[in-house]
């Protein structure tokens, strides 16, 4: 039998094994189901919705700031409020929007792209979401009490120390980020384990989609980059609350140590945000160019290289602090070198489009717009690698312009493009093309009108993080333009949101594969059932759904118990490099324990903030005991005696019936 397309592959697999598999993958309903679910798709959507809420809040903050800066000596907000707005805006956009939003994409898509049924640690995944939501609540509610972080998202000491900021603002910052760090680290580890162990058979490392590569590199970066931030925040909290002297110069501490630790995290973090976003582009561009991505090994190498080099460039945030010239020349060189892998990606997409034939759908339009603005952010990025230019323009509005081109252009554009691309998969609905075009052009125009003038204001000497400015310095017109742009941008984003919400209620039902995509997620229903794939396919190429043998495998493997895993709530484990099948792994059922554990942590961190140390210990105990409850080795129904059941396989790679229990 020969299968024509992804939709056919989906139907063949569902017909062959859908009912058998679905029995073991029930979906929880009601409030209980909502709290206890460990389904990666529900968690992924939840991440994206929550991150979008934080994006909206932080965006409103930005709009208030722009309103304040419309005219010189503006009096819309007080300087104290302005400082909280810009600090929380940065902190929220970086930590509570960009990373969680992209991790939401990852959560939803990674198992689907890999051809498996869930993340490696589903309960840990649910826990990660609850911690993220709780940490966001913790951080944003501080604004209501007037104690939001107010020393910038970078929180330089000594300003962030107890002496100059005695109120709770910076305790909210340090504890909030430590709290969130648990979630981010956990997600990173989960992505790595999933990508290494749960790929469909045949998906060797040279057949892994670029988006997955990007997410895995990002996850490795999280594993290595978050510790310096966590350490710095822990030391800041100890300094502020318990009188240690890590960052206090009068006690022998060092104010620059904070900057080193912060940027040792901070610069990799730029790529932690941008890499998965570029991965989204690498998913969109081939689909709408009707050909596989150009120079796949080169773009994968570039992704990995970016991850590694990004740990050697942090000092370019510190060129003005008075470092030795030799150190600056080294970090300048590293910062220049890291632009090469970015260039590779740009030309890989351009090459894909040039060799292919472009279909100008809405997601592709966002990808094209992204390429243009990202290149503009990239060329100014190279400028900052040149030490004297950096020393002149750092901490000016030129930097604000630069990093919004990189982060808004380089992450938000792909995110919105990705939302339009995978919306049918996320929701089962299609979006209006006309509304999508309006949304793109409004955002594109509003974005450029907002941020392009900031280049000029910066070159004209306007420093950043000022709550107002004096008239007659040549900055007035550019600020006025930026503010006008900000409102246009807000309108564009509102149109985007309305387009999506309208589609949710009224959109036409989406077929499994509306765009003719190349990766496995399109061979599932829109939205996918709880079990994702009734039959685990065998992957024969980098673009499995454009590959006849892979398409056929959806039907053929339905005779192999190893590929169907219909005996329980199971997924298939494969080898790390060659994705050869190993064993079935039993996945955990829905459970409220992750929710309880995260709630315990919320109590612990809130009590720590308010100085109730006994309550903090109680909260930590709730967390600890739920963790033990969670990890206690249990005998499950369906696993005879021990957790692992190892029947003698019948050979042929289909060792049916073998399985082991999951650990987390």
């Amino acid at each position: 039998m020969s299968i024509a397309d992804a939709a056919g592959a989906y139907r063949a697999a569902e017909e062959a094994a859908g009912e058998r598999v679905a029995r073991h993958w029930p979906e929880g309903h009601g409030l209980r189901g909502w709290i206890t679910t460990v389904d990666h798709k529900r968690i992924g959507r939840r991440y994206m919705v929550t991150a979008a809420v934080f994006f909206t809040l932080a965006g409103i903050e930005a709009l208030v700031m722009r309103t304040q800066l419309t005219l010189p000596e503006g009096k819309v907000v007080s300087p104290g409020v302005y400082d909280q707005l810009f600090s929380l805006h940065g902190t929220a956009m970086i930590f509570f929007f960009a990373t969680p939003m992209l991790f939401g994409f990852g959560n939803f898509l990674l198992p689907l792209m890999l051809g498996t049924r869930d993340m490696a640690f589903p309960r840990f995944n649910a826990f990660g979401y609850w911690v993220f939501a709780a940490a966001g609540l913790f951080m944003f509610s501080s604004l209501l009490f007037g104690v939001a972080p107010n020393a910038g998202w970078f929180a330089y000491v000594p300003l962030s120390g107890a002496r100059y900021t005695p109120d709770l603002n910076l305790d909210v910052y340090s504890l909030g980020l430590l709290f969130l760090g648990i979630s981010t680290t956990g997600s990173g580890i989960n992505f790595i384990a999933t990508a290494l162990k749960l790929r469909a058979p045949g998906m060797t490392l040279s057949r892994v989609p670029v988006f997955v590569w990007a997410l895995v590199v990002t996850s490795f970066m999280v594993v290595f980059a978050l510790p310096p931030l966590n350490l710095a925040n822990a030391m800041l909290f100890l300094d502020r609350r318990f009188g240690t002297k890590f960052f206090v110069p009068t006690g022998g501490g060092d104010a620059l140590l904070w900057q080193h630790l912060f940027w040792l995290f901070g610069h990799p973090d730029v790529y932690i945000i941008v890499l998965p976003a570029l991965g989204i582009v690498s998913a969109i561009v081939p689909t709408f160019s009707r050909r596989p991505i150009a120079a796949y090994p080169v773009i994968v190498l570039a992704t990995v290289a970016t991850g590694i080099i990004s740990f050697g460039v942090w000092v370019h945030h510190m060129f003005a602090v008075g470092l030795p010239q030799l150190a600056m020349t080294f970090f300048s060189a590293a910062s220049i070198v890291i632009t090469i892998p970015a260039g590779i990606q740009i030309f890989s997409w351009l090459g894909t489009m040039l060799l292919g034939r472009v279909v100008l759908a809405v997601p592709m339009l966002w990808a094209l717009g992204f390429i243009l603005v990202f290149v503009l952010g990239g060329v100014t990025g190279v400028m900052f690698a040149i030490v004297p230019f950096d020393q002149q323009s750092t901490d000016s509005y030129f930097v604000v312009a630069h990093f919004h081109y990189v982060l808004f252009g380089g992450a938000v554009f792909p995110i919105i493009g990705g939302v339009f691309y995978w919306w049918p998969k996320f929701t089962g609905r299609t979006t209006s093309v006309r509304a999508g075009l309006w949304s793109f052009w409004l955002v594109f125009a509003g974005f450029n009108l907002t941020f392009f003038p900031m280049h000029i204001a910066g070159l004209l000497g306007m420093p950043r993080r000022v709550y107002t400015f004096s008239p007659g310095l040549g900055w007035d017109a550019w600020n006025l333009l930026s503010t006008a742009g900000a409102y246009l941008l807000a309108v564009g984003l509102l149109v985007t949101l309305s387009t999506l919400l309208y589609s949710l209620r009224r959109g036409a039902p989406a077929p499994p594969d509306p765009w003719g995509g190349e990766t496995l997620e399109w061979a599932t229903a829109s939205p996918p059932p709880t079990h994702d794939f009734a039959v685990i396919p065998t992957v024969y190429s980098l673009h499995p759904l454009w590959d006849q043998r892979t398409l056929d495998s959806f039907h053929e493997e339905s005779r192999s118990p190893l590929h169907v895993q219909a005996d329980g709530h199971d997924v298939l484990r494969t080898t790390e490099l060659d994705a050869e099948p190993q064993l079935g792994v039993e996945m955990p059922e829905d459970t409220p324990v992750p929710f309880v554990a995260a709630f315990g942590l919320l109590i612990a961190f809130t009590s720590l903030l308010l100085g109730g140390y006994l309550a903090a210990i109680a909260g930590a105990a709730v967390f600890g005991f739920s963790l033990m409850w969670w990890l206690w080795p249990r005998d499950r129904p369906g696993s005879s005696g021990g957790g692992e059941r190892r029947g003698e396989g019948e050979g042929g790679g289909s060792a049916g019936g073998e399985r082991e229990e999951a650990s987390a």
Partner: protein
Amino acid sequence: GGAAPSTLSPAGVGARRVAGLWWLLFGISVVVAVLVAVLLAWVMARRTRAGVHARTGSGRAFVVTMGVVLPAIVLAFVYAVGLRDLRDLAVPRDPHALVIEVVGHQWWWEVRYPASGFVTANEIHVPTGSTVRLRLSTADVNHSFWVPQLAVKTDLIAGRVNEMWLRAEHDGVYRGQCAEYCGLQHGHMAFHVIAQPAAEFASWLAGQARPAAVPAGGAPARGLRVLEASSCAACHTVRGTRADGKVGPDLTHVGGRRFLAAGAIPNTPGYLGGWISDSQSIKPGNAMPPQPLAPEDLRSLIAYLGTLR
């Protein structure tokens, strides 16, 4: 006031060098952006309908040429230019250069001329055409010293002393501003560098070194008594009087300065009066409490401060 403190209208050696660097980088950027834009336009021009599968082929040669080889050549060139400029902008080892110490405060600038032994605030006078070395430190949090038209910025880091230099090419008043976020009034922490001919500068130095003039009588004399009797004296120094506080800026020659409150307001009697009676409404959060002075006392005080040139 004054013209835009633009990095693109340099009046100092360092800033001129960086402005040149900017135009080079800008030119390269325009070429790159146009190249990408043209490729994108071409791609869109030959777009097609859904359902057509295009030819394959790896595209590796294109990606490696455009994404690695060409950028590597351009970047190596840019890096070399950057290194040359970095070397030329290093702090010179000229032992005869004038040394000025700048101490950052929340939210004003203390300026010391150690060779002449006086202290002033928010205004830095330098002789045009000579190299001036700046020794930067902070009394509280981090700040950054930035005069866009004269030199690249250098941070003031708590617990450290940083050095930088500048050389003004033309006479003029150049606006500078703190560039490192330093709290509530970071936005109002400006200063001015006044480059003047050597002779004019020498006479300014001599004038600043003198203590405050003793008023002959009338309102200024009364104002001096108000200054010494009120809480002003606890925070400010006016050399030659009993006011010797160290918290706020030295006011010995405040009358000669162009601005008050670190560039926040011009130095006119009206603004000065407003500042003294309620500085919090002008620059919320600054360290100076409102001074409830009788109207007559306030007028005398303003008159006295105006004489301190």
